[in-house]
């Protein structure tokens, strides 16, 4: 499968970077073709501009400002997102990818004011993430990033496509051993992806 890996962490020595490397290694070992999209390295601008907003619903031209990203998203058979959770949401750079690239005509079609999803080339989705908050706190907050993955993105990709959510919570208090265990879990999930 051709897998688009969307990665969003600015620091190359972070645990997020280790997860990213592991995901790439394990997916490659499983024989997948990988398109690694490191949003920070590519200096992706997450701000939807005024011009983009004005032309948002014009499916002939709306892709132009982010054409390369649209092509990569549409060329992929699967999507793997590697990101930290900050303030119970995705980092701005990743949220901006959805705002700017998941356009009408790309991920959904508008008809009479109703949106119908159409990102059906994506047949598998996995999210690999870390939270500062505990699992309990995330649950009490309603776990917004999990909902984005398991409800919003699930609704947009191919119907009944498998969605996996791998999360390590309470990062400020995790030991090295616990982080290593999680890395191992991610590795085996990606080898079977």
């Amino acid at each position, binding site marked *: 499968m051709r897998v688009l890996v969307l990665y969003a962490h600015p620091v190359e020595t972070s645990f997020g970077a280790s997860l990213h490397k592991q995901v790439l290694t394990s997916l490659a070992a499983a024989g997948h073709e990988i398109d690694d999209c490191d949003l920070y390295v590519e200096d992706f601008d997450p701000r939807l501009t005024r011009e983009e907003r004005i032309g948002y619903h014009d499916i002939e031209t709306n892709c132009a400002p982010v054409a390369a990203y649209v092509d990569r998203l549409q060329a992929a058979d699967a999507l793997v997102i590697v990101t930290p959770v900050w303030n119970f*949401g995705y980092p701005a750079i990743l949220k901006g990818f959805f705002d700017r690239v998941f356009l009408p005509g790309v991920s959904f079609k508008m008809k009479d004011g109703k949106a119908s999803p159409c990102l059906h080339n994506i047949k598998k989705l996995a999210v690999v993430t870390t939270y500062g908050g505990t699992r309990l706190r995330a649950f009490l907050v309603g776990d917004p990033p999990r909902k984005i993955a398991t409800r919003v993105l699930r609704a947009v990709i191919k119907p009944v496509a498998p969605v996996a959510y791998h999360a390590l919570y309470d990062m400020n208090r995790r030991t090295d051993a616990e982080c290593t265990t999680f890395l191992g879990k991610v590795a085996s999930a990606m080898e079977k992806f």
Partner: protein
Amino acid sequence: MRALVVYCHPCPESFNAGVLETAVTTLEAAGHEVRLRDLYKEDFAPAMSAEERRGYHDIDDNVKPVQKYVDDICWCEMIVFVYPTWWFGLPAMLKGWFDRVWVPHVTFTVPTATQGMKPNMQHIKRIAVVTTCGATWWVSKLIGEPGRKTIMRGMRALCAPVCKTLYIAHYKMDTSTDQTRARYLAKVKKRLSAF
């Protein structure tokens, strides 16, 4: 009350700009001292940089790149957010404001082995969200309103324990009419002046 209005929309001619005007006028008429942050107008950079992330946990230093924004949230007793809901969440611009400005030590104390996270923004006693959604009310509920929860549960947990909240949304924006928009503005005015 000292009210901070955080506004996020790229188009000055948008309906959201009208909502902002109504919100600010209403708050001022109710006797609040209003400070406005227009994130697009100020060209706020929402992506936290590598340098900021490395210094994220350094007391005092972590405030420096965003000092004036941190001053805002330390000054206010009420925050009113005006933004469009995109992909059931906050626009990246607004999400980045949270990522970069709500730094540890100022807004919360980082959990340790013996102690959980402790909130530090008890002076914020009111949070209002005034937003527009493309989706219907039903679909928003079914998805679970991630954007609403990020602010009303996630960020609110850092504020006063009895922080009052107000959420006013115009759903189905893509099929809105002059009537629905006028009704919504009237609602914003009524609910915010009583807030």
